[in-house]
């Protein structure tokens, strides 16, 4: 029987959207030197998803809304600490320590109290091949919110990373853009958790931007390159995973890493 690759449109949509969202966010994360915070966000996303599962089972609250609300609250706590003068790396370290501890407690509680083992695994390792049409609509909504909050303001975000004072002197309220960025990251990491998974979210939020920065000579090119690398990596990873039967999120992560290694060899 000849080799036949069967692709469900839902897989392509969810991986494509996740790649687009991270492709836009990742260069901004690098430009604004938020790598440490962005690397910690998947932890808060996983905790938010687990807390939302508990709330849904105990109180009947809608999972999607609860998870986003929890994520925003958790990430806002870090922002508040940083704005109060705590060093960003210290604030993030405290945040990761607490969220990892609470994640373990929540995970144990869920696995012992509710029959949800499969759902929990999908949040940890991610599985775009299991998404339903309801998941797709949620992903579309999350992607739309994040893209509306970031794409029109890419120039401001990047320039805040270069010289925050000058941006303020030009009449731009930098703190408002900080809030928009933090909210976008919080919503994206929790909203795309099921599609991408906790583990590979680290890769997708960081590597496209880092790779693009190593290759580009201007902010405009870095943003476009980050977007294209993320989209190409996501779709290539999906195709390879379907062809080989390997975990899609893991393959996407490996493809992204491959792009990064190529960028290292090529240099600027």
């Amino acid at each position: 029987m000849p080799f036949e690759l069967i692709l469900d449109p839902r897989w392509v949509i969810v991986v494509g959207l996740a790649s687009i969202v991270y492709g836009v966010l990742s260069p901004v994360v690098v430009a604004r030197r938020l790598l440490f915070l962005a690397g910690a966000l998947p932890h808060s996303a996983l905790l938010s998803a687990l807390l939302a599962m508990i709330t849904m089972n105990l109180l009947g609250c809608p999972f999607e809304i609860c998870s986003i609300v929890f994520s925003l609250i958790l990430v806002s706590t870090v922002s508040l600490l940083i704005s109060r003068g705590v060093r960003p790396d210290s604030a993030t370290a405290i945040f990761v320590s607490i969220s990892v501890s609470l994640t373990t407690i929540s995970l144990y509680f869920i696995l012992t109290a509710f029959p949800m083992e499969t759902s929990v695994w999908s949040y940890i390792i991610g599985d775009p091949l299991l998404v339903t049409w309801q998941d797709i609509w949620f992903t579309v909504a999350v992607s739309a919110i994040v893209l509306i909050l970031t794409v029109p303001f890419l120039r401001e975000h990047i320039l805040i990373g270069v010289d925050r004072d000058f941006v303020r002197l030009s009449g731009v309220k930098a703190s408002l853009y900080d809030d928009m960025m933090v909210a976008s990251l919080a919503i994206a990491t929790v909203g795309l958790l099921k599609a991408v998974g906790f583990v590979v979210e680290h890769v997708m939020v960081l590597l496209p931007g880092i790779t693009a920065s190593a290759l580009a000579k201007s902010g405009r090119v870095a943003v476009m390159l980050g977007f294209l690398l993320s989209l190409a990596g996501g779709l290539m990873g999906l195709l390879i995973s379907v062809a080989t039967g390997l975990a899609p999120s893991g393959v996407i992560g490996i493809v992204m890493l491959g792009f990064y290694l190529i960028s290292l060899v090529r240099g600027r």
Partner: protein
Amino acid sequence: MSALTLEAKGLGVSYGDEEIFSNEDFRLEGPGLVVVMGPNGAGKTTLFKAILGLIPVRGRVLVNGEDVTGRPERAGRLIGYVPQWRGEDYSFPVSVREIVESAIALRRRPPRLSFPKDEGERIESALERMGVGDVADKPLSELSGGQRQRVFIARALVWDPSILIMDEPLTAVDPMGRVDLVRMIKEMSSSKLVMVSSHDPSMFLDRAKLIMVVNRGIVALGPPSEVIREELLSRVYGRSVFIVEKCVHVVDGYAV
């Protein structure tokens, strides 16, 4: 009222319980060069940020008679600002042109994704004036210290402000680059009010209209002949001051 004035009335700045400036009054009139000197940590950058409305202050700051206290968007329209180089990480590639374009792009209403083509001439003019037109498409990370400072000065000059504040513009600039930069700054001071801080004020002394000595407060403000005195500088710098013949040097580890 002069068209080129920078005035502070009862200016005070504190970081927590620590008072850096308290009830300071001064009035600077341009054009001319005002050199701000003081040891590391004396509050030179804090003073500039207070004038620009970038940090909370007490008292009032008036630029050309307009109250800009705590209003960076107002101060930014009247004052060009060249920040101090603090070894920033420019690993994200932002080109020279993008930096200079930001002076115009950020003043427009959002979305600011595109850059207006009719403003291109203004950008080219600023780049050429500072001699960085040939590196306009290079990322900031590939420039020398002197070129980088010229880029930030070019950005400050895009709107041709009548007042310029330059925070340690000679930092990380090689000796030849320093000579060029100092010459440019002196030229600008013939038509603008230029406030410049430096760990090596001797390079500016021949053109300085006023010297402001800062050390957790404004210690002295006046013409060089009144301020550059061994007794006063020794009070501020301690043993870092020494006099060779009739030339005053401050050796605090920053000057070349």
